[in-house]
């Protein structure tokens, strides 16, 4: 196989048709791979206003141009589709080694359309694909599904699958591979709606590079740079288990459904406390960082719980929203979500929302099947996770996510629903980290930190410049910079964490060039332009589906309620100038005041074919 296979599989589950199709040269040049192929083909295949859970929705499972090589931190993969949670563009990134296996099978991506009559899975081998019955797998956890398929098809098999949450159409179901998940935006829900339980790939490790000698020299250089980086060693030691040791004193750790920016007694959840439960490390394909940390609970009410995690976001999801400081409960909750195949961020956020509704009397014990949703009650949180995945009782409502729960309950509940475009917000308080806040507001997938992370305000990174994290309009350029950088990085679907390991500015383009032979990549400006092209095409996808300025907003809480940080910086902060920010952001993006990419901008980015879709 070559680093870019220039082929994809097109599978129609309604009629059973499987077609191998070429990726035309110009698309490879214009979009390079990864996120580029994802949005490019999704835009082409999708009709506006398609119901995300109908057979007409398209699901893409995409690997990157560097996947499967010996380069470090680059073998990730992603799911692209129209989100059932938001109705907008969705992309969700995952690790483990499925991305490498997809490449070994001879394809850059798999496009899945239609809906099977009964549960099925795809079995992809080198240059072949079969649709097989998944009757025996339906109802199984993500772990058991993978174990069964690997047993059936052999040890050279890797699997991406859904659990019961996806089968039951929980709106924020994830796609799991090993114990990593493409979690956000409900990609697993779309798989469930298609009766697609899993994609299993059986392949031998082999790959042909355009220029293997140069590539191997570059990898040696990459490894040298990685090992010289302090972050490499720090991340290898603790992964993401210490981030809350810092976000709490910064006042940006959301607590009690985003009322507070710091948790009392957060030291009980410190990285050092998690270390006491640690039983090992794990890694993605070709990554010596091994940042994944395994945790095992050996005693108490959660004895026997184990998790390849939780990561920072999941630590937060099962502590901050309900104000829990019991580590064992966070490990148990993380395990459940991984087994059921459910996004931890949306799950934790939605549960925190339910706790606030309970406090305010908008949900009662009668509504909650007798559960007392009082702050800190982690036992009820565990029960709710099970109920959501199985759509039992109150879980059937909460499985819809905060936006739909608020609409169903009414009585002002929407004031406490913490989502953007329907996607629940993650573990950074937007009033204390406003670049991230405005990124949530303008992100094409909704409230995601991963869409345009702001290292400037969380880590004090001076690149491209230092920022005041409480400034608003002044930071529009930074929000754009971060979103475009994200898209550029995801062309190769490289790990977001490796951005701080010192190799990207120097080597990313060179590795892509040596792997693909696409000459334009030699120009660093070209990669950046493709990143911007991707953000604009994602935006066009959303505009075509009815999104615009009105949806680029933040939850009422952040616009009307001052943040309380319990002594940390940022007390009293609010988002005060959303409209002015949007004016500036759109202007700098080359979009109209309504948030629509202008014909000039689309032409400049080589997206002239999109102009007519924008109503020009």
């Amino acid at each position: 196989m070559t680093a870019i296979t220039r082929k994809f599989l097109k599978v129609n589950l309604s009629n059973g048709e499987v077609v191998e199709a070429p990726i035309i040269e110009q698309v490879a040049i214009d979009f390079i791979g990864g996120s580029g192929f994802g949005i490019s083909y999704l835009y082409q295949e999708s009709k506006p206003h398609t119901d995300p859970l109908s057979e007409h929705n398209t699901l893409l499972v995409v690997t990157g141009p560097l996947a499967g090589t010996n380069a470090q931190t680059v073998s990730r993969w992603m799911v692209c589709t129209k989100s059932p949670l938001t109705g907008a563009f969705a992309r969700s990134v995952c690790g483990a080694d499925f991305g490498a296996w997809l490449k070994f099978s001879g394809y850059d991506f798999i496009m899945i359309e239609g809906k099977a009559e009964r549960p099925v899975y795809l079995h992809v081998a080198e240059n072949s694909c079969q649709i097989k019955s998944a009757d025996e797998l339906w109802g199984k956890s993500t772990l058991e599904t993978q174990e069964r398929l690997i047993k059936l098809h052999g040890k050279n098999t890797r699997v991406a699958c859904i659990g019961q949450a996806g089968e039951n159409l929980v709106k924020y179901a994830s796609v799991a591979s090993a114990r990593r998940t493409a979690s956000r935006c409900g990609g697993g829900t779309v798989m469930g709606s298609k009766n697609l339980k899993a994609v299993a790939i059986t392949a031998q490790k082999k790959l042909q590079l355009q220029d293997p000698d140069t590539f191997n020299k570059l990898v040696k250089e990459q490894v040298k740079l990685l090992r010289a980086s302090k972050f490499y060693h720090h991340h290898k030691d603790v992964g993401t288990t210490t981030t809350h040791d810092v976000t709490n004193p910064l006042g940006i750790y959301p607590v009690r459904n985003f009322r507070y920016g710091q948790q009392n007694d957060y030291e009980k959840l410190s990285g050092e406390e998690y270390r006491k439960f640690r039983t090992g490390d794990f890694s993605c394909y070709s990554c010596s960082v091994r940042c994944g940390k395994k945790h095992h609970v050996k005693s108490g009410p959660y004895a026997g719980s184990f998790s390849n995690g939780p990561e920072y976001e999941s630590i937060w999801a099962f502590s901050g929203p309900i104000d829990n400081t019991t580590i064992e409960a966070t490990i148990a909750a993380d395990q459940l979500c991984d087994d059921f195949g459910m996004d931890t961020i949306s799950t934790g956020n939605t549960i925190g929302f339910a706790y606030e509704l309970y406090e305010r009397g908008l949900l009662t014990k009668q509504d909650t099947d007798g559960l007392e949703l009082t702050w800190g009650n982690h036992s009820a949180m565990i029960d709710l996770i099970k109920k959501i995945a199985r759509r039992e009782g109150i879980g059937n409502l909460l499985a819809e996510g905060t936006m739909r729960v608020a609409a169903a309950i009414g009585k002002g509940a929407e004031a406490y629903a913490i989502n953007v475009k329907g996607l629940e917000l993650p573990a950074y308080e937007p009033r204390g980290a406003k670049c991230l806040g405005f990124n949530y507001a303008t992100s094409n997938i909704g409230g995601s930190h991963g869409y345009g992370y702001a290292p400037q305000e969380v880590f004090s990174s001076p690149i491209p410049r230092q920022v005041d994290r409480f400034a608003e309009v002044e930071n529009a350029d930074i929000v754009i910079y971060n979103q475009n950088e994200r898209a550029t990085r995801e062309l190769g679907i490289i790990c977001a964490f490796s951005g701080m390991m010192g190799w990207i500015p120097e080597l990313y383009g060179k590795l892509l060039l040596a792997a693909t032979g696409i000459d334009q990549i030699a120009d660093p400006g070209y990669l950046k332009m493709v990143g911007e092209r991707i953000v604009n095409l994602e935006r066009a996808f959303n505009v075509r589906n009815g999104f615009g300025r009105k949806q680029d907003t933040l939850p009422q809480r952040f616009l009307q309620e001052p943040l309380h940080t319990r002594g940390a910086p940022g007390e009293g902060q609010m988002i005060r100038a959303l409209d002015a920010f949007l004016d500036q952001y759109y202007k700098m993006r080359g979009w109209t005041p309504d948030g629509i990419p202008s014909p000039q901008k689309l032409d400049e980015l080589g997206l002239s074919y999109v102009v007519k879709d924008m109503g020009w």
Partner: protein
Amino acid sequence: MRVQIKIPPFLFQITKGVKLTNVTGNTVGECLEDFVAQFPPAKKLLFNKDNKLFGHIEIFLNGVSTFPEELEKPVHDGDTIFLLYLLSGG
């Protein structure tokens, strides 16, 4: 040696908005000691209970990481120190 510390935003609250300060010392560690003497609350954000630099703090000297020498790294007149949080939230 007379060295400048370019204060990162995560310490602005402690330095009351001061963004640049002069310190003296022969090594990065001595310069940070002087910095902490000027702004005592900064200590708990930079050093753990055993007085060791946190793993999540990286020190740059004239734009270049001091890792692995870090606090032992010698400084010269006119050098600039900058601090960075090394975190990741996935």
